[in-house]
């Protein structure tokens, strides 16, 4: 742009966001058109949607002076327009052109925004596109130039009495939608945090009202306070719920890029794969939606790479040539469940076992259950693929997928059946901001332990504690559970009754640890706050929370403590020495 009377940089960020969304839409629409073309049918709504997306990319790019992007988008828009007005038929070669153009467009946009090299083959592509659509290169390059010629033409056309071209326009109608606005996620986070405080305080006020009512049941003021507290409780609960809903977005936002991914990966592997998507409307917290894309993508790649067989192999096994992957999301109680299932060959447990022995993870004599064998694939660096594929073998293993899911407080399960397929199940909480916690006291400190990892809390008889190679363990239901004394771990000091051992049994991924504390202080809903930058990261602590009483409680990072208790290898040693 020759002169910049407005702050262009400010708009580039918006351009980036909006273009990314539009590229996803172009993808989804193009893929749908590919199906329609194959079936020999047509859907005006999809062609229109594609046309509008390309049109918007063009306008935005031109406005910001990204001439190359605008030029390519214009070429593709012309193709979309030709399909829309049925000047060109909806055929697979035309859709192929759209898909290739979309890839170039993605490359050009990234390049314009300062990331990545300019995509190759642009000139050749545009030439081919011009031939098909019938526009001239001159017309396309003129786009970022001077609009005077355009204005002159409009004036000329206005001077003429009738305009046959004007009737070529198709009216685009669809059901009316609720007006929406975009809100910075930080604002919602801040609001969520405040509401969290409100909810915690509401509990406290209800408690006070209840205590007073027990003392002075007939007092009018106490009655008024109780009623008021009940109303406050209801309203704040509703605010919390509405706000949580405001943060919810459909998981379809993540799903919509997958058809393209599956298509491309399958093509590269010379496999035939059909992807069925269900539950795209299922809503969950925006933060989780942002984080879940990567793991899901890896699982899909994994299904195609390792699960789905080559078409010939499938036919020989009496299966349809094309493999099927289904991706589903649905609500189950207070959780959202995402399933990815394929109808491929399943995980070869014998090979997993052999690989585990090679890597020294298990000894040849060891007997593992099916589930324990599957657990082996979550070990970093574990892969049974004979050749590292260029698609899923990018150094991102199943261990990373599992770690990502765990970080989102989710649970990851794998079911497999030889010759029939594999199913990955991810269970995620609806929100991460508020959790149920068990409060415990150690010395003078209050700690919160997330309830999702608590198995039970109980008093351990001192006689049941044994010491194995310097470490304390107890046997609970035939499982050896190491004890970890919180006071020692965090170096809190204080004296305690050696005869009275209170332990909270926590479990992560099937491994249990008994956390030894001084007292149990009940359960509470808590609002997680990250530890400030000043305090920095403390191993074993994942955050802090302010309780209704105003006291501060640190939230225990169960994952780290369990890893610590097992990481030293002391439990493994205890098991091998036959305790």
């Amino acid at each position: 742009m020759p002169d910049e009377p407005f702050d262009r940089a400010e708009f580039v960020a918006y351009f980036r966001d909006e273009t990314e969304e539009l590229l996803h839409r172009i993808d989804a629409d193009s893929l749908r058109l590919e199906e329609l073309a194959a079936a020999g049918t047509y859907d005006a709504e999809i062609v229109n949607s594609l046309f509008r997306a390309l049109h918007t990319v063009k306008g935005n790019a031109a406005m910001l002076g990204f001439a190359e992007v605008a030029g390519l988008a214009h070429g593709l828009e012309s193709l979309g327009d030709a399909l829309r007005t049925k000047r060109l038929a909806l055929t697979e070669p035309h859709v192929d052109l759209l898909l290739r153009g979309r890839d170039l467009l993605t490359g050009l946009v990234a390049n314009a925004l300062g990331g990545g090299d300019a995509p190759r083959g642009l000139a050749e592509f545009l030439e081919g596109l011009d031939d098909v659509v019938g526009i001239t290169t001159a017309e396309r390059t003129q786009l970022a130039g001077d609009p005077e010629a355009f204005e002159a033409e409009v004036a000329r056309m206005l001077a003429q009495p009738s305009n046959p071209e004007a009737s070529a326009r198709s009216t685009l109608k669809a059901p009316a939608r609720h007006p929406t606005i975009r809100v910075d996620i930080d604002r919602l986070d801040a609001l969520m945090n405040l509401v969290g405080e409100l909810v915690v305080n509401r509990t406290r006020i209800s408690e006070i009202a209840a205590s007073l009512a027990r003392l002075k049941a007939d007092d009018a003021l106490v009655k008024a306070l109780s009623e008021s507290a009940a109303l406050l409780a209801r309203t704040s609960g509703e605010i919390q719920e509405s706000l949580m809903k405001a943060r919810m977005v459909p998981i379809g936002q993540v799903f919509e890029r997958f058809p393209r991914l599956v298509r491309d990966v399958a093509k590269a592997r010379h496999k035939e794969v059909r992807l069925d998507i269900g539950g795209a409307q299922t809503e969950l917290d925006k933060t989780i939606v942002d984080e879940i894309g990567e793991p899901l993508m890896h699982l899909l790649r994994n299904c195609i790479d390792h699960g789905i067989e080559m078409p010939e192999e499938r036919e020989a096994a009496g299966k349809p040539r094309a493999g099927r992957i289904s991706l589903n999301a649905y609500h189950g109680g207070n959780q959202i469940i995402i399933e990815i299932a394929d109808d491929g060959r399943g995980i070869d447990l014998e090979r997993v076992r052999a690989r585990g022995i090679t890597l020294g993870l298990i000894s040849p004599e060891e007997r593992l259950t099916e589930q324990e064998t599957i657990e082996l694939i979550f070990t970093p660096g574990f892969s049974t693929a004979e050749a590292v594929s260029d698609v899923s073998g990018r150094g991102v293993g199943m261990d990373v997928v599992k770690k990502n899911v765990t970080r989102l407080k989710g649970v990851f399960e794998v079911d497999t059946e030889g010759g029939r397929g594999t199913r990955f199940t991810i269970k995620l909480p609806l929100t991460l901001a508020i959790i149920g916690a068990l409060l415990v006291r150690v010395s003078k400190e209050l700690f919160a332990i997330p309830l999702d990892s608590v198995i039970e809390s109980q008093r351990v008889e001192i006689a049941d504690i044994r010491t194995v190679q310097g470490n304390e363990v107890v046997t609970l239901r035939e499982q050896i559970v190491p004890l970890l004394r919180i006071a020692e771990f965090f170096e809190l000091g204080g004296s305690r009754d050696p005869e009275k051992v209170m332990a909270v049994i926590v479990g992560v991924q099937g491994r249990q640890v008994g956390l030894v504390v001084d007292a149990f202080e009940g359960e509470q809903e808590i609002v997680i706050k990250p530890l400030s930058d000043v305090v920095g990261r403390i191993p074993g602590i994942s955050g802090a929370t302010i309780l209704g009483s105003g006291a501060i409680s640190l939230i225990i990072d169960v994952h780290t403590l369990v890893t610590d208790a097992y990481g030293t290898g002391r439990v493994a040693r205890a098991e091998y020495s036959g305790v």
Partner: protein
Amino acid sequence: MSKRVLIVDDAVVMRMMIKGILAKSGFDIVGEAQNGVEAVEKYVALRPDLVTMDVVMPEMDGITAVKQILAHDPAAKIVMCTSMGQQALVVEAIQAGAKSFITKPFQAPKIVDTLTKVLA
């Protein structure tokens, strides 16, 4: 008194830019709409002095919106905001009653100029 403007465009970037330019030039942005349906609703509710109207939008396009707004208020001042290659549509909009048009990509003085002339 500064003139009250309603901005209609389905592209966030475009709305932001037009808003930025007009706000700096002393216009009062009273509302934004991202499709024709919203544009008509907001026009009726807000009665702005001027509307900038995109052409290609989902739900209802800009030309239909121009016609519906003019049906509500024959004195409505609407300026089309259009991309090159849409000559026929601009002509149709102006024949339907739009007062003027600007072409994307436009520069700040151009849009301010056009709007000022239409309001004069």
